[in-house]
């Protein structure tokens, strides 16, 4: 598997750390309530198909990357730096 790092170009998956769903980008307010936090920390859409997740180019440039990926085919159609993603 190869992932295109916006800084470094296409790299082998072994350079990356996988975090999980990109919903991590939208952290609830402290007072959002137990359900909102449960959804943020635990519950997942977990789609069999297109998803958006977070990877860290740990053995590379150190960028956190938002990856649009298909969980069935492993095709990747877009990657962006998390730091520049509008939220």
């Amino acid at each position: 598997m190869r992932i295109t790092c916006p800084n470094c170009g296409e790299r082998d998956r072994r350079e990356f750390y996988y975090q999980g769903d990109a919903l991590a980008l939208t952290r609830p307010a402290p007072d959002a309530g137990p359900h909102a936090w449960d959804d943020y920390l635990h519950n997942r859409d977990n789609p069999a198909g297109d998803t958006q997740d977070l990877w860290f180019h740990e053995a590379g440039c150190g960028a956190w990357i938002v990856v649009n990926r298909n969980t069935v085919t492993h095709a990747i159609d877009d990657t962006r730096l998390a730091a520049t993603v509008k939220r």
Partner: protein
Amino acid sequence: MVKLLSRSPCADLLPCTVGTITMSEVLLDRVMSVAPFAGQAKPTSAALKDQIGLGLSAPGRAVSNRRARVVWAGQRMWLVAADVSLDGLAAVTDQSDAWAILRIEGEGVEDVLARLVPIDLRASTFKGGHTARTMLGHMSVGITRVGAQAFEFMAMRSMAATLVHDLQVAAENIAAR
């Protein structure tokens, strides 16, 4: 009066030659990390240009002149081999002792590196002055092409022995073919 003796990361390990491949340690007196603050990349680059004659290099590129070198080192991060003063523009840390820097050269060096480095180092793709943060074996390293058949690695100082060992074994395997 006490006196502290200096010891380089690859002392006792380098230089060494295996077949056509030679490895040697590169000693840089000063290496600073430079991480421009938000919106300060351009002023930082300008200040560097003033001080050492080189600005920040593009991602994946290393530039040098007689006084200094600037090597892109990751997301919002450069390593500058020179003393610099960038107060308020960038986070600067002293990294002069943090890295084992190794030069490897000789005929077939790309074959040796192909044993360990998971990126495309073909001369057509990874040209002179290109640099990358990647892996060597299980280690995180920086690699820069410094000649047609010469590369420089930067690895964590504590891993110097593994760095040299892994490259030696790869070179031996190539030589044995």
